[in-house]
């Protein structure tokens, strides 16, 4: 589809938005796609996120992390949608149980394919996926993650710690299961998806 470019120079607001926000569109979509696991829903989510960002772009402070700002909007839109559908992210709080669920973390294999890494990430509870993706993939700071997910900073740190332990365990067990044959799909008794 042809892109409009001529009026952009005449509209400084659009020019600023185009320069600051649009470069993050692909990463934002990957994030939405990861959480939604559905292309159509991910497109709706990103479109609504970007429209909201455009309308409230005057609130964005130049010099701050625009990707973190967009991620916060995306998480808000996502939360509102889930709330409207009567779904919550958690059936119960895995933070209370996960400490007992990772007594042993086998060594992480040296050679892992992208599919193995993303597969393992996708099998841990969503609350841990969220912080790992925002921290390790999107490279947001703990504070930016706390703002985006509307959770305390301490919760971000504890979820990161437990989530990474779960991920390592998942990768270790997965590799062992590949070596020793098929086994159960369950991961430490935790729900994979809420």
């Amino acid at each position, binding site marked *: 589809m042809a892109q*409009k470019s001529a009026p952009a120079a005449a509209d400084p607001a659009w020019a600023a938005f185009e320069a600051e926000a649009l470069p993050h569109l692909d990463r934002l979509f990957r994030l939405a796609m990861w959480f939604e696991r559905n292309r159509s829903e991910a497109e709706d989510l990103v*479109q609504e996120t970007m429209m909201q960002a455009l309308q409230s772009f005057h609130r964005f402070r130049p010099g701050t992390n625009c990707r973190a700002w967009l991620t916060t909007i995306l998480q808000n839109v996502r939360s509102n949608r889930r709330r409207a559908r009567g779904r919550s992210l958690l059936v119960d709080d895995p933070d209370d149980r996960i400490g007992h669920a990772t007594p042993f973390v086998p060594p992480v294999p040296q050679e892992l394919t992208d599919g193995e890494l993303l597969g393992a990430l996708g099998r841990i509870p969503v609350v841990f996926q969220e912080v790992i993706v925002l921290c390790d993939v999107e490279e947001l700071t703990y504070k930016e993650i706390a703002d985006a997910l509307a959770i305390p900073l301490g919760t971000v740190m504890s979820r990161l710690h437990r989530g990474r332990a779960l991920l390592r365990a998942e990768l270790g067990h997965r590799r062992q299961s590949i070596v020793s044959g098929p086994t159960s799909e369950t991961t430490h008794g935790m729900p994979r998806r809420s």
Partner: protein
Amino acid sequence: MADSFLGEELLTETNHEILRHLDTCPVCRADLAGRRALREGVQRAFHRAPELGASPEFIARLRNKLQDTAHQGSARRGVRFPGWWALAATVLLAVALGLAYRGRDRITATGALARVAVGDHRYCALQFRLAEKPISLEEAAQRYGAAYRVLERLPADDVMTAIGPAHVLERHACVYEGRRFAHIVFTYRGERVSLLVTAVDGSVTPALPGETLPHLTSPSRIDGMSVVSFRASRQMIFFAGDVVQNDLLMLAEAVGEPLYRGLAATESAGARRRSLGRVRSKISTRLISESEQLRQRSRVSCSIVAINEDSGSMRQPYPILHNQ
């Protein structure tokens, strides 16, 4: 802590400690390398996964939609607020808000002063319960200014209003809630009514008599009392009492003119000439006409006071500031 170290979330001092430790601990070095490799691996896999990527069509479609929305928004803003008009509107709005804010301050200041005057009337004229003993007007004049001396003789002991007589019972100077008043107590319409005069600065009513609006600022009754007020050159004058407001207005009109002139006389001749000159220039048929219309409509209005211009004064309106 290892993950926070990798995420650069630790204090510099803590980072240094970890680095020192890593120099001597191959186990931690290996652990940290594994964690770093895992992070980088997840990040790389995430960005490379084709199933997570947006389609070029979606990106282009969304970009165009955003651009259209942005241009529509700016177009709407352009129609509503072209540059010069937005500037003019902003200036007008700022002026209006400023005037409103000033007006509110005046109203607030006058209303607060009226409450103090009512309190003085209640606790001095009715209940004789002031913390500080009143002093004579002469003593007050010696201490605080010649205006108090004027009130020893003005108004006269017996005043005839349009609806009946008023008689002065008491004249003194007293203090209520830190404000000093010249206080004259009347019997009027079977009740005790107070005339209270207090010095004010520009914060209460900045305009001179005759050039201001009849700013009627408080409710008709304050703390159960009717209140009528007006402004002299350097004083605020209140009438307060438990009588019908219109009756109080009649007393104010009967007493106001000589009192106003008397207080004005205490000022220096030069100041008075300047004041009268400004008042004269401000008198207009429109003001008188509007005052008369207001009087006929609500029976509360500015009064027109006859002053002999040949004797150094003039026919002059002064605003009776009262409470509707």
